[in-house]
Structures are given as C-alpha cells and as structure tokens.
C-alpha cells in the first residue's frame, strides 16, 4: 500500500506540473508552427495516467497489446488522414489564355 501511495502521489504531482507547463507553453509567443508543442505535455500526461493510475505496465500482456493497437491505429487515422489536406494544392494554368 505504501509503495502504491507514493506511486499515485508522484503521478499526481507530475500531472499537475505538466498541466502548469502546458499552461505556460501556451502563453509563450510562439509561431504558428510551434503551437503544436502544447500537445507534448498533454501526451505525457496521458502516458502518466495510463501507467500511474491505470497500471498499464502491470496489466496482462494482452491488455498492453490492445492498448498499443489502439494508439497505433489512431496514429494511422490521424497520420494518413492529414496527408490530403496538408498537401492539397490546385494546379492553376500559369498564364491567362489569349482569346
């Protein structure tokens, strides 16, 4: 129980720190491209919840496999899904035609 208590409080503290960090990063005058950085603390927080609170590390192997599958497939959806809007360009004619 003692070990678990320490573990839980450590996770909690880390979560609060990251929340503060996230809050701070969002307030920095960052350019458009750097805005996504805010998501790094957020993803770390998700990791801490999974490991600290949900005990994913101690879960049966199958459970870890399923969690990993979920993450990979979400990455497929978002990754391949972004491909189209991020690379979409129209191909205009270079010059106006003469009539």
């Amino acid at each position, binding site marked *: 129980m003692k070990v678990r208590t320490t573990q839980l409080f450590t996770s909690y503290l880390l979560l609060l720190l990251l929340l503060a960090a996230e809050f701070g990063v969002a307030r920095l005058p960052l350019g458009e491209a750097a805005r996504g950085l805010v998501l790094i603390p957020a993803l770390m927080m998700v990791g801490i919840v999974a490991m600290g609170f949900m005990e994913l590390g101690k879960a049966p192997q*199958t459970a870890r496999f*399923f969690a990993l*599958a*979920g993450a990979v*497939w979400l990455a*497929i*959806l978002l990754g*391949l*899904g972004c*491909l*189209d*809007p*991020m*690379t*979409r*360009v129209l191909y205009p004619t270079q010059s106006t035609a003469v009539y």
Partner: protein
Amino acid sequence: MTVTETRSQTSYLSDGYTLRSWLLTTDHKRIALLYFAAITFFFFVGGIGATLVRYNLLSPKGLLGSAETYNRLFSMHGVVMVWFFLVPAVPTTLGNFLVPLMLGARDLAFPRLNLLSWYLFILAGLVALYALIVGGVDTGWTFYTPLTSFYSKGHVVATVVAVFIAGFSSIATGLNFIVSIHKLRAPGMTWHRMPVFLWSLYATSVIMVLATPVLAMTLLLVAFERLFRIGVFDPAIGGDPLLFQHLFWFYSHPAVYIMILPGFGVISEIVPAFSRKELFGYKFVVWASVAIAVIGFLVWGHHMFVAGTSLYSALVFSILSYMVAVPSAIKVFNWLGTMHKGFIRFDAPMLYALGFIGLFTMGGLTGLFVAALAADVHLTQTYFVVAHFHYVMVGGMVSAYFAALHFWWPKITGRLYPEMWGRAAAIIIFVGFNVTFFPQFILGYLGMPRRYNAYPPEFEALNVLSSGGASILAIGYLLPLGYLAWSLFYGERASANPWGATGLEWTTPSPPPTENFETTPVVTLPPYSYPYTETSRDE
C-alpha cells in the same frame, strides 16, 4: 480443471423449449441461431430491393417511373445489405457458433455481452425498418455530405442512428471474439495450431473493433450537422466535405475486409476437407489474413481519386492499394496448391467454395483496374465499380456464406440437407451471378454511371441481360431457403463428423451439447492433419 457434468449430455437445441430459454440465453450456439433468423430476414429485405432495382433498369426510361423511388430503393438495398447482412453475416452466425467449438472452449469470453450484441442488432434493425417504412433514405449507403446533411429529403437521422447502433453490436461481437481467442484456447491449441477460420475471424474482429467506432462518430457528426444545420463538413463555413469521405472510407474500406475475410477462413476450411489434404502454406494463409486486416486500413483514399484530394495522397493510396492485393493473391494460390494432388470430392460446400475462388479472383483482379490511378478516373463511379464490388461481396462473400452454411449445417442442426439440391443451387447461383454482373463490367467501361434510374438507350441490351441474370440468381438464393428448411424436419440425422473433417467442432456430437465438450479437449496436432499428409510425411 473444474467440469460440470450435469448438462453436458443434452443437445443445446433440447436444453429448454420456452421462448424465455431462447430470448434470454447466453449460450453462444443459441445466440448464433437468433442471429441466423435476423440475418436471413434482412438478406431477403435487401434482396427485394435488389430485385426492384434490376426490374427498374429493364427499360432505359426506368420502369418504376419515379427517380425518387429508385433512389430510395438502392439506398435501402445498400444500407440493409452492408450493415445488416454482409458485415454481420458470417461472424455473428457461424462465428458465434464455431469460435468456442473450434477453440475447445465452453462459451465466448463474455456471454452476456454476446446476447447484448444481438439485442443491439435487433434494435438497430427495428430502427432501420422504421426509417424504411416511413419513407426510407435517398442518399445512397455512402451518406455523402452535404447531400445527406442539408439537401436530402429522406429520413437521414433515423437511418444513421440505425447504423450507429448496428455498429456497436458489431464492436461487441468483435471484442468478444478477440478476447476469447486470446484467452480461451484449449490446452495445446497454440496460435499456429488454430484453424484458419479462427485466424480470419480474429483479423475480422480487429477491423470491427478499430474501424467501426470511427464510423460511429462520423455518423454522429452527420446527424449533428443535419439537426443543427451547421457542422464540420459544411463547406459554406470552410468545413470540408472531403473530411467526411476520409472518415467514412476509413471505416468502409476495411469493412470490405470485414465482409470477405471470414469468407477466406471458410474456404480455407472447406478446400482441405474436400481435398483430404493439409492446407497448403498454412502460415502464409494465416499471416496474409493479418496483413490484409492491417494494410486494409491504409488504403481508404483510393475511393477518392477523383474527389479532389491532393495528388500526393492519391499516389500514396494507390500504391498501398496494390500492396493489399498481394496477400489476397497469396491466398488464391494456396487454395489451388491445396487441391494439387488431393482427393477431391464435389459435395455442395466444395462446389460453393470453388465458385468462391473463381468469382473472388475476378473481383480481386478488377480491383486492380480501379487501383490504377488513370484507369480509375475512367471507371470509378460507373457500373464497373458496381460489378467489381458485387463480385467480391456477393460472388465472393455470399458464396462463402452458403459454403459455410452447407458445411456446418449438419453440426448446427444435426440434420443432413439433400445433397443433389445443394449442388444444383451452387451451380445455379454461379451461373446466375455471372450473367447478372459480368455485363455490368462492360456497361461501366462504356461509361454508364452508377445510381441512374434512367439511362441512354444504347445501354439497354446489357441491362436487360443483367436483369435476366438477376432472376436466375434470385431462384438460386431461394432454393437453399427451401431445402434447408425442409431438412430441419425431414433431413437425415447427421453423425458427429459427416465430412470426416478435422477440427475440434467435429469431435463433439451433432448438434453439440450445451457445454460443448464433456471434458476440455487437448490439442496435439496441427490443423488439417488429414490422413494423406500423415502417411506421406517423412519428418
């Protein structure tokens, strides 16, 4: 291992005769039969839609007269066939029945969840029927926005809700299968001793579990957009209708593999059983299924080559689409390899299976046409595509479903069906199918667009031919309904293993007792250990 001996001798069919004993059952075998009833009903509802569609197209002007009626008919045909027949057909019926039997387990991991999934399916079906009776939907099964969200005059929200609920039924089934296969394999049943049918249901379930939620959320977004007249797909405010298509096909392309993968599994059981020979290249067949399930998620963009996506995305999706065709090809070659030097018998299941191999190969090969970018530009959204996916879905998947139904019928019901009728139906279906859909390839190449209730007169001859074929096909599909029902009452009693096939399901009586096995079986041999291979094996 604790074993309860009390009820293990009674057949699951005679374990209670009350309505309650059926409607509240958690026995996977009884739930499978409940699904059989529901799915057969929807197959014929969808079939009526198809019949009327083909009737309308007998004349270039459209015999039904009204475009609106036609649009609602083909939309209904699509929605019902996709979500209420093709997706659930094999997994919920034969899958539910066979997964625990093949694993050597007493039931699925979560029997109550299994029953819940049937109730969800029925609820979804009722909502769909409600939508149908009050007037149906006129958007096609693809629900493209902004047509669906702003312009449709049909009952979009009800239909979408029906599909949403059916989706959760399918998630529950998939989840149950995956956990059961991971956790409930009998002693000695290692991963590489699992029958291919289980492997392919595993791959199917992966898709059900990971793709269906995406569809569910997408449909919620569509319903929101329809109800509040604003949404993320609305181009008027900068939203992207192509986002809808991306999300829709993220589910609906893998969904094609939900439909066909169980078929692969069925054929991989039947071909060795009727060739009396080990499955050729077992591991290749198995891992090809897994590869299809994974790569199948990476190809959805090939439905959008002319939709206005970026050039780069089209190129990436095209090459990935070719990749997914490779494992399918591997499977076809392995089935042929299994027949090589076999002792081939021509019972009805084998005839259906041979039909499957032929029709699926044609469906697969025509898939290459539409994966080739420039050819797709010409062929997509025409009857070529209609023919292509019917070859895979109907020629392939429905043939596999019938093959499986005949193969395991004695196990499920304890009765034999009349063999001659079975063979006749298999041949009629094969012929009728080709007459119906082959002309559609030509129509498509000539440019006839999909979803037209009236068409230019030069397409008439081929359309009439196609409709003629459809009537043969309809007879082919009605025949099994008749003789299988007949066999329930008058069929000869089946022994535990009428085909002399391998697999744990054949070691228990037909029909199996409620708890499947008297004692938990122990697996010592690889699958498909037919005598032929045992004697000639020199290891």
